[in-house]
């Protein structure tokens, strides 16, 4: 039985040591929308988002679903996994990341995440999609099922990363949500992973819709989107730089609230354009052999 009809827990995860960025919450709201389009039942979806403003988070997430979803905090994840009853988990992680791991009240290291999942009772396999920057620190770890002891096998873990040891890339998009069209700066890799789940493509042509197809699709299409964004922002970055110079001069001469805000707006746009120009994203998959046979 495939993951969607099977005994699978679908996890949308955003941990943070501060307040979450709205764009990351939108990433997960869009994921929620796509999971429900794919036919995942609401009781099989678990959402973990850190942040003090719970009502605000609930409202942003509600843009992805007309159904009521409980939003837990990242600290609840380990408790839930210790009481796991699902054979499979599929987990999508957005937010910030770095050399210390995934940003969280206590940063989540590759070893900690691996141990939590490997130690989940009843779990046979887990597929993790990592969208955060420097996701590659979660590569080259012991994700595969151990050969021994054969009478008590540990879960098979497949990890798919948006990028290796670089920043991950996000671009502005406009997508249709339950509440209408919303504009946000989307994590490109997760956006296309979610899109694939809502409308899967058999990329390798083997007649099966498998995890490896999702990896190939999300990687290739996010790279195309990235290339197109680089072309588009090359010229606009030059214009944005001129604007940035003008607003900097204005704020130096007359530091009003409006001039400061204009300068901040120009800085935000220029930095976003330069991020696209100078970042390289290379997606990866760990434990690719079982990924070829696990079907959605």
């Amino acid at each position: 039985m495939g993951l969607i009809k099977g005994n699978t827990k679908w996890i949308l995860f955003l941990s943070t040591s501060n307040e979450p960025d709205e764009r990351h919450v939108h990433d997960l709201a869009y994921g929620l929308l796509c999971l429900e389009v794919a036919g995942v039942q609401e009781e099989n979806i678990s959402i973990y988002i850190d942040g003090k403003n719970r009502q605000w988070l609930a409202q942003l997430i509600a843009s992805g679903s007309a159904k009521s979803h409980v939003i837990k905090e990242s600290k609840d994840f380990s408790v839930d996994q210790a009481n796991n009853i699902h054979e499979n988990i599929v987990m999508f992680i957005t937010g910030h990341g770095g050399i210390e791991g995934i940003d969280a009240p206590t940063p989540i290291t590759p070893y900690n995440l691996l141990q939590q999942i490997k130690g989940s009772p009843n779990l046979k396999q887990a597929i993790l999609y990592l969208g955060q920057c420097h996701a590659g620190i979660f590569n080259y770890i012991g994700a595969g099922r151990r050969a021994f002891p054969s009478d008590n096998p540990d879960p098979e873990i497949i990890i798919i990363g948006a990028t290796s040891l670089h920043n991950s890339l996000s671009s502005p998009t406009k997508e249709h949500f339950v509440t209408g069209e919303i504009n946000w700066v989307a994590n490109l890799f997760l956006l296309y992973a979610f899109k694939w789940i809502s409308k899967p493509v058999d990329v390798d042509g083997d007649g099966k819709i498998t995890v490896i197809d999702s990896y190939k699709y999300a990687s290739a299409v996010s790279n195309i989107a990235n290339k197109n964004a680089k072309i588009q922002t090359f010229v606009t970055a030059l214009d944005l730089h001129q604007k940035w110079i003008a607003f900097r001069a204005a704020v130096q001469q007359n530091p009003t609230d409006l001039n400061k805000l204009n300068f901040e707006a120009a800085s935000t746009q220029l930095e976003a354009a330069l991020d696209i120009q100078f970042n390289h994203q290379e997606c990866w998959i760990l434990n690719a052999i079982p990924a070829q046979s696990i079907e959605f």
Partner: protein
Amino acid sequence: MKVNNIRSNELPEIDSSIKECVNLGQWLLFRSKAIQPDVKEAAYFLKAGTKIFCLNKNGKILETIEKEKLNMPIDELIYFSDLLQPKSLSNMIAR
């Protein structure tokens, strides 16, 4: 939470670079009846990074508000219909 598109001349007191950040999804512009700012004529709220600004009906900056007040419902998300908005990345095809 409704999504509402208004014309940019409805908020003449803020410049286009600010409105572009809103349209690109980098900043959030919204209305909320539940937020009670100290300045009564606040009509819009702009979340720019970690700061939240109260704007009057013309977009003039009135004050910044505390982050705690953000735990309130958004009645309307606002975009500008006559300024550039991002194209959906759903429409992109491999080439």
